[in-house]
Structures are given as structure tokens and as C-alpha cells.
């Protein structure tokens, strides 16, 4: 304990015999220098601190800016992704509907081909002289033949002829009506043919 006390005690081993006024001047000058050093140090520390804060803020700003940019990119990417996803879904939907449509069309095409064949066969088939057709239509695989006839006999002959074609399972006369046009008598008839 005593030893550590001694270590703290510092001897004074130099003198200064300058006149008091010079000593005061030197002390004043030193004081000014110390104040200046402290001031400069303070300014330096403050500016350093300011610089650190500024650079930190700047860094933070840069980081935020970068993050924002990244976020923007992510957002854009997300939008693109969503759009693409939607587009994909739409495409899939369209593809599905197109597939459906194409199958229907194909079916229809197939059906139409059959019907056309039937129609052509019906038209090609020789008709009695007193018969002329006004329309041919199909509904759910059933054919409706609308025609005109000068006599009922001709209608009956035409029905027999169609039956001979053996194209339809069932043929029946769904309606016949007598019509007079400009003093001429004729009959309109409707034939329903089931395949």
C-alpha cells in the first residue's frame, strides 16, 4: 500500500526563472493553445460523429433504396408471375374449351358427314313425278322431310320408296295438309324418319 503511494508521488525537478509576466504570458498562450486544441478536437469529434451519422444514414438510405428496388423487382416479378399464372390458367381453360369445342366440332363433323350422306341419298333417290321437296332437316338423328305432292298416292309411293332404301328404322307421316294455290290443288306433307 505504502509502495503504491510512493509511485504516485512525483518529484519536481525543474525550475523556470522567467519573469512572472512572461510566465503568465506563456501560461495564457498555453491555455489558448489548449482551448484551441480542445475546440479543434471538439469540432473534429463532432464532425467525425456527424460524418459517421451521415455515412450511417447514407448507408441506411442506400440499403433502404436497394431493398425498395429489390421489393419493386419482387413486386414486378410477382405481378408478372401472377399474370403468367393467370395466362397459363386462361390458356389451360381455353385449351380445355378448345378441346371440348374441337371434340364437338369433330362429333358434329362426323354427324354432319353422316347426315349429308343421308340427305344426298334421299335427294338422289328417285321420287314420283308428282312429288317435290321443300326442305330437309335433322333433329337428334331424326330426319324431317317436308315436301309437296299433287296426290295422296304419290305421297304413299314416296313413303314406300324411302322404306325400300332401308336407311331408316321407322318412317311415319307426321302431317299432311291439302293446299290450294291459284286454283291448283296440292298437298304438303311432313315425314319423320328415325335412324
Amino acid at each position, binding site marked *: 500500500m*505504502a*509502495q503504491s503511494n*510512493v*509511485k504516485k*508521488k*512525483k*518529484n*519536481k*525537478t*525543474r*525550475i*523556470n*526563472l*522567467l*519573469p*512572472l509576466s*512572461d510566465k503568465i504570458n*506563456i501560461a495564457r498562450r498555453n491555455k489558448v493553445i489548449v482551448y484551441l486544441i480542445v475546440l479543434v478536437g471538439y469540432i473534429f469529434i463532432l464532425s467525425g460523429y456527424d460524418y459517421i451519422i451521415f455515412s450511417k444514414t447514407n448507408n441506411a438510405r442506400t440499403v433502404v433504396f436497394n431493398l425498395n428496388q429489390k421489393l419493386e423487382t419482387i413486386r414486378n416479378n410477382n405481378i408478372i408471375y401472377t399474370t403468367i399464372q393467370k395466362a397459363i390458367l386462361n390458356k389451360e381453360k381455353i385449351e380445355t374449351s378448345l378441346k371440348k369445342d374441337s371434340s364437338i366440332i369433330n362429333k358434329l363433323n362426323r354427324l354432319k358427314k353422316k347426315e349429308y350422306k343421308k340427305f344426298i341419298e334421299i335427294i338422289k333417290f328417285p321420287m314420283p313425278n308428282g312429288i317435290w321437296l321443300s326442305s330437309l332437316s335433322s333433329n337428334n338423328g331424326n330426319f324431317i322431310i317436308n315436301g309437296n305432292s299433287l296426290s295422296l298416292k304419290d305421297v304413299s309411293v314416296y313413303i314406300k320408296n324411302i322404306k325400300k332404301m332401308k336407311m331408316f328404322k321407322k318412317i311415319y307421316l307426321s302431317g299432311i295438309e291439302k293446299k290450294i294455290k291459284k286454283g291448283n290443288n296440292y298437298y304438303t306433307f311432313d315425314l319423320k324418319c328415325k335412324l
Partner: protein
Amino acid sequence: MSKTFTAVIIDYNYIKIIEATKKNKTYIINNFSLEKLNQNDIDATTYNDNAENTENILMAEEIKKAFGLRQFSKKNVFTVLNDDYIYNYNFSLPEMPESDLAKAVEYEVKKKSPFPLSQIVYDYIYTYQEDNKDGGYNLLTTAYVAKKEYSEQLVKTFAKADIKLRSIESKTTSLYNANLFIYGNNAGLHYMLIDINLISIKIIIIYKNTIIFERNIEEINIIKNTKNINEAGETISAEIQKTVDYYYAGKSIEPIENIYISGVYANNETFKDIISNLTNIHIETMSILKLLDNGSGADTHNNNAKNNNGKADSARNNNENDKKRNKKERKIQPLIKLSSKLYKKIYKNKTAAKNVRKAANNSDKLSDGNSNNINHYTDNDNIGSNNGIMNMNLDGQILSNYILYDENNLFDILDIMLPAFGLMLGK
């Protein structure tokens, strides 16, 4: 952080200047010079009406010239007041705060000084001494007092040379601080410092780290007034004897353990042997050159300087502790170095100068005290000239003024720079 100091000592007709930069704890010597004042011009002023003023102007011009020659720094300039103008008073004070101490010293100075306080400038040094009675500490204080007019005159002289003095000290404290710097508290309990100058000699006796006696021997001019190294040694020994006789008259204190010698011949082993034989006291050298030149010297110096802060009586530390400390502190860098520029300049002629010195020392030793057989080299124009060749007179003839010192030799100049260097030291 570094600070440059310049110390100036005007000694009779010589002006010594040394400039060093303190970097951390190392003093780097940048430059030094020993210029002879134009004494004839200065002396001539005594016949003028305003002699004092003219002398000051001339002195200022000489200082300015000396500073300008080697571009010494004028920032932190230290100088000394002539020892004749300084009175010192020793007294012991109890331990007290610094402000109270200043008042106590003022009181003591007022009591002891023959001049009123308004006419003087004073300052003091102190060392802590353990008080055996109560375990506390006493302050062994030495106050230095000088007449204000001398101090002001010195300030004016330097101001005329465009130099603002930082401090005026005394050669005594500078030597004391130099010794503390080199040997620390290992210098001993009771020792003597001798600074042999070109013209005067200063003897200081230190007891328990306190300067208790000092003596100036003026105009002894050891170089001119002695024929050779033996005679110089004898003269110095006689002065030491006189001083010791006077000092011990009516006192019964421990004998002087060591003599620390600095200045002219401080590094001359023959010279030291002569004094040691004649006084029966161990002689040590206080020299900047030795610290620079000798690696072990630098270590010792480090070791001792480290101890400066220690307790006053730590001089009695046992050897084992010293050895341990030495081992530890060998790694520490030296406390004095030469600047690279000065190193090149001073060591350019080292080999030649060293050889001559060695040869002279050897021949001195061979002569074994017989002055008739001593070899000398002259201090004529050839000595210490830029080529570093010194003429040896090997005919064994004693020639007056043929002596082992050359005031143009940078090594010899550096040897007498210690008091100036000491001004930069101290706390």
C-alpha cells in the same frame, strides 16, 4: 506526438545550442553547435556610453547568427541564467497540496532572500523523502532565486534575436536532471556531479536525491591551463579534494559514493583513472555520446530512467531486482538517438576519430601516469577538420596546449552538450 526543443547555454565566450525532438519517450538529437562568441566586439562595448544595451544587441546578434547557421528551431527555447546570479536555499517542508506548497516556498524565499520579492524571480524543485517518525513524507525543497533584472535582461536579449524563451533554468538543475535521466535513482545515495566545461567547472553534491551543495570554479580553463591529461586529472582531483574538505567541514554524513563526470575528457578512461586514484572515489561518465555509442549504456540508461518515478530511496534496490528489470527493459528502444541527418554527419568521420582517440587512450595507459611518455594530438587547424585526420605527436615530448580535446570535433562537442541537453529533461 513529437515536440522539438532547443536548449542554449551561453558560457563565457561560447554559445552551446542543442536541438532535440521528443517523440514518445525518445529524444532525437537533430543538431547541435558550439560557436565561439566574438568576444572582442562584446568587450569593446564596455567603453561605450550605453554599454549594457550595446552588449545585449551584440549578444543577440551572436545568438541570432548561431541559430541561423544551423537553422535551429526557435519554438521551445530553454536557456540558463549564469550561476553567479542564482542563489539557492534548501529547506524541508511537510507534505502539502501544490497550492499551499507554493505559498510555503514563497514564505521561505521571502525569509531567506536578501532581496524583496518584487525584485526577484524564483522557482523550486522538491523530492519526496520518507519521514521515519510518522511514516509520512517530507518535501526536501531547493528554491532558486535570481534578481528579476537579470532574468528580464536575458529575455530581452533573446527577444532581440527573435526568440521567445520558454524557460530559464540553472545549469545545476540541468545537470541534476541529466544525471536522473541517465542513472535514475541508481545514481546512489550520496554522489557528486562534475561538469568540466571549456572554461569553468561545476561541482554539485547530491544527497538523498537533493542538491545540497554546488560550486563553480570559474576560468579554470582546463584545456589551456594544463599541459596534458595527467595534469588535467590532477587539477580536477585537487579541486574535488578542496570541495570535499569544505563540504565535510563540521559534518558527519555518509561518504560520497560516486563521482559522475561530464564534459571535457568525460569519456577518457585515463582521465577517470587518475581522478579515481587520487580521490579514492568511483568515477562514472555522464555522456550523451556514451549513451549513443554504447548499446549497454542505452540499456542502463533505460533502466535507470524508468526508475525516475520511483521512491527516493529506491537507489538501494537490490541487485537481483535490477538484473530482472534489465532483462525486461533491454527490449525498450533507447531514449536518445541521433537524427538520420546528424547520424550521417557525425559518423562520417567516426572511424578516424575513434582510432585517434583509442590510440591516444592506449598510449596514455601505457605511460602509466608518466606524463613524459604521453602521446598527444594537437588542437591546431588540422584537428577535427572535415577530413577527420588528427596529427599525432609521437615524439613523446610534452607540448603546452597539446591536449586530448578538440573543440572542432563533433564527438568532443557532443560531450560538452550534456548541461544543455539536461535543460530539456526534468519534470
